[in-house]
């Protein structure tokens, strides 16, 4: 047991790897939130009048809403007037190409292991990088442009593709959806926009990297993906933040609109700063992500690896409206120290013969709390629908908690829903078996955890799978429950 304790100690004392801070000059709004701040943000971004109106409408809505209290997480009340809602890395002029980008910024991304330069051509990933809520660089634009694919920062899209934005903004996550979606709609500063035209298969992975750099800021980005009939895209998102003593708020909105026969794959590796081992600091990650399978036979698949954030609270969802459409959700959520995660998914079956699959793997260590919360709702007209859910929890240490809250609502008699969940620790017999064969305890745990999460990790694109496995290993190697 003493060895276990030692290993656990080692695990809980591991420090956050991405916790550096680059001295970037920023242009910030004053603290607080009111209509003037909303106007300030809109003005800074040279937005057209309709966008400002939209923001103001969201702000007025938000002012009347109250913060939801139902998740299984606890945190001190957030003072929404003590947050800087807009912070942009200062640049004299909009960079024309990568050489013009602030070298400090480039350094930031090199530290993150994302090179915005030509090396990326080798891996074939187009990157849109967002620092402190402002998109700083997008690569491979021309190459994508040849296919008619639009991949750019959100503010650029507002200026250059207003028709598309007007049509799809808020079509999946309306501003009135929830408290944080309304807040985001009012103050979102940037994000990515992606449009795949009819019948186009996007030849490379599209990727956005988010980083919160400035202190006291909240990050509110918005991602909108529109996949036209018969198109395909795989989209990746990653995030980090420096170590800070205070908590920072991250309230993003992701909307995916998939038309007939379209297929969108969305993967996230979330590694925001989780706070130190006493639970000081860290990011509050309150995110609304939703996909609408609007057309028949469309498919959306969410994959997430959640290792960071002091508090994670998000439910990437699928609204399966088109007949025969399908939604998938694969998740690994790891919590350590005093981290709290309340995450899961919603599968709303509306169309006939719709299918959904949920695989959620929770791992809790230290004094953390890890919850799965999910809903499978099969509406009356969703005849012949099918759902399979599996959510497993692994506990390491006797001070953590694992919770499962699945909601299953079925309104017809032709659908089949299956749900299963287990909670356990790593079996002593499994460890014993490995040790018997000459694998030491630490490697055995790594092996078992990796096997446990494999089903989800396998869904990740190559580039992310490596990072995710590294992250998992970093957080959990050597810990024996």
């Amino acid at each position: 047991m003493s060895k276990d304790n030692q290993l656990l100690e080692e695990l809980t004392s591991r420090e956050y790897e991405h916790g550096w801070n680059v001295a970037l000059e920023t242009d910030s709004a004053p603290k607080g939130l009111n209509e003037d701040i909303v106007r300030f943000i809109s003005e800074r971004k040279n937005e057209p009048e309709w966008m400002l109106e939209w923001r103001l409408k969201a702000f007025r809505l938000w002012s009347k809403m109250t913060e939801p209290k139902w998740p299984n997480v606890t945190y001190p009340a957030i003072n929404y007037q003590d947050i800087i809602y807009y912070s942009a890395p200062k640049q004299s002029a909009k960079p024309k190409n990568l050489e013009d980008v602030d070298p400090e910024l480039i350094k930031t991304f090199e530290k993150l292991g994302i090179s915005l330069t030509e090396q990326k051509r080798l891996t074939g990933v187009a990157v849109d990088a967002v620092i402190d809520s402002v998109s700083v660089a997008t690569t491979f634009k021309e190459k994508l442009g040849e296919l008619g694919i639009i991949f750019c920062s959100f503010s650029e899209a507002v200026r250059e593709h207003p028709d598309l934005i007007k049509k799809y903004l808020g079509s999946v996550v309306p501003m009135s959806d929830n408290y944080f979606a309304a807040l985001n709609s009012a103050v979102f500063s940037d994000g990515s926009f992606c449009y795949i035209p009819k019948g186009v298969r996007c030849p490379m992975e599209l990727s956005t990297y988010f980083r919160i750099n400035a202190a006291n800021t909240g990050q509110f980005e918005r991602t909108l993906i529109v996949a036209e009939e018969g198109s395909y895209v795989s989209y990746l998102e990653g995030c980090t933040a420096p170590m800070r003593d205070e908590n920072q708020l991250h309230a993003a909105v992701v909307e995916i609109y998939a038309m007939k026969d379209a297929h969108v794959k969305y993967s996230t590796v979330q590694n925001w700063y989780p706070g130190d081992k006493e639970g000081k600091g860290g990011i509050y990650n309150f995110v609304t992500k939703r996909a609408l399978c609007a057309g028949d036979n469309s498919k959306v698949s969410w994959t997430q690896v959640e290792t960071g954030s002091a508090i994670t609270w998000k439910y990437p969802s699928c609204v399966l409206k088109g007949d025969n459409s399908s939604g998938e959700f694969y998740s690994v959520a790891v919590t350590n120290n005093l981290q709290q995660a309340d995450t899961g998914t919603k599968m709303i079956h509306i169309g006939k013969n719709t299918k959904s699959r949920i695989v959620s793997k929770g791992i809790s260590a230290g004094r953390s709390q890890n919850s799965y919360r999910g809903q499978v709702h099969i509406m009356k007209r969703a005849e012949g629908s099918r759902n399979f859910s599996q959510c497993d929890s692994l506990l390491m240490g006797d001070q953590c908690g694992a919770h499962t809250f699945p909601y299953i609502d079925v309104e017809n008699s032709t659908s089949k829903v299956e749900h299963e969940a287990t909670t356990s620790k790593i079996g002593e017999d499994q460890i014993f078996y490995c040790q018997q064969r000459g694998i030491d305890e630490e490697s055995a745990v790594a092996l078992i955890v990796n096997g446990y999460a494999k089903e989800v990790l396998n869904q990740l694109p190559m580039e992310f799978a490596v990072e995710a496995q590294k992250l998992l290993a970093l957080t959990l190697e050597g810990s024996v429950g």
Partner: protein
Amino acid sequence: MSTVTTSKSLSEIIGSFSSATFNEALDSRKHAVEILETKGLPAGKNEEYRFTPITRAIENVFTWKTESAPSSITSIDPFLIEGLDANVIVFVNGKYSESLSRIVSPESEVSIKSLREAFNSNIEAVNTNFNTLVNPEADSFAALNTAFWQDGLFVHVPASTRVEKPIVILHLNDAIQHQVIAHTRLLIILETGSKLSVIEKFHTTGEQASLHTFTEEIEVKENAALEYCKVQNDTGKAYQVINTNIRQADSSRVDTFTLTLGGQIIRNNFAITIAGEKCESHFNGLYMLNGNTLADNHTVVDHQKPNSFSNEMYKGVLDGNSKGVFNGKIFVRPQAQKTNAFQSNRNIALSPSSTINTKPQLEIWADDVKCSHGCTIGQLDEEAMFYLQSRGIDKSTAQGMMLYAFTAETLNTISNEVVKEYVDSLISERLHKNF
């Protein structure tokens, strides 16, 4: 997320409370009224009553009154279980009926009294144990019941005693002429090493509506064993909210079975607290619904001590416009290491207009445990149906056979053969007549 109803009914309900009519356990009654004042009855947004609009029914269907409606019931024969030699306790419209009840077990084996009588004769076990297992703060209907209970039953089994004959409790509501609102209680104490079997039945007669709140507290001490069976086969205008709270001490065993066949809205809050080590609890439930019945089973197993085992199995068959709601919570507290807790909820939907809402929930704070839950919603296996039909069995018989096989497993927690046969006959009747 407001849970407070500010309707006229609530103020009417609270206003009807007077210390003069309700003099037993006055402190707990007053406290419950305070809870009602602050919390109200659960409204539509309340998470625990999201699918079960019983508050609305109280507002729209019932005229609130606190006195028991008169009754003309003179014979209990139609409600008895044929061939079962048992103690029979009868409540009519919430009042204990001494003339209809029949106690056959000797006083040395078990002490059975009306709760009012037990309070009036100042029995210490009642004073100390009453209202300790139920938490009126947690459920407003428990508060309503605690404030307004008319009568109840107190059962005390002395240490190392086996009660040979089961206790059958008949809850009869005579709604032939008037609406019935009844609030009853039950307090059972099983001392160390004792054994008891309880069967509860609920019946409403007549065409009027009935509302019955019932709160049960059952203390199962070390090495004691309880067998508990509840049959809810009520009429289409019966509303019930039943709070059952069982606490187990070291090495005790509890086997329960809840059968729900009829009623308008039936809500069962069923909670087992495992407060001892090496306990075993098996609790099964079966709901077979048709018409407009809504059956809502909310169960909680709270593992507070190590080395215990719990197994929960609830099954449902839904036809017509019926609704089945299930919420099963398993809590495993930090000290409850080496707990094994299993739960399953399986449903078959027969009709396109039936609805199933299920929410199996695990909350685990201990690491060395084995816990699992599973739930399914589906239909009868088409291939098996085809197999039976290809051998000349008509479709409805085949369906009956398949459903019978599906439900039979849940009867495992009943050991008394007569009771089992009776329950079995109710299931068969439902399968042949109504599906």
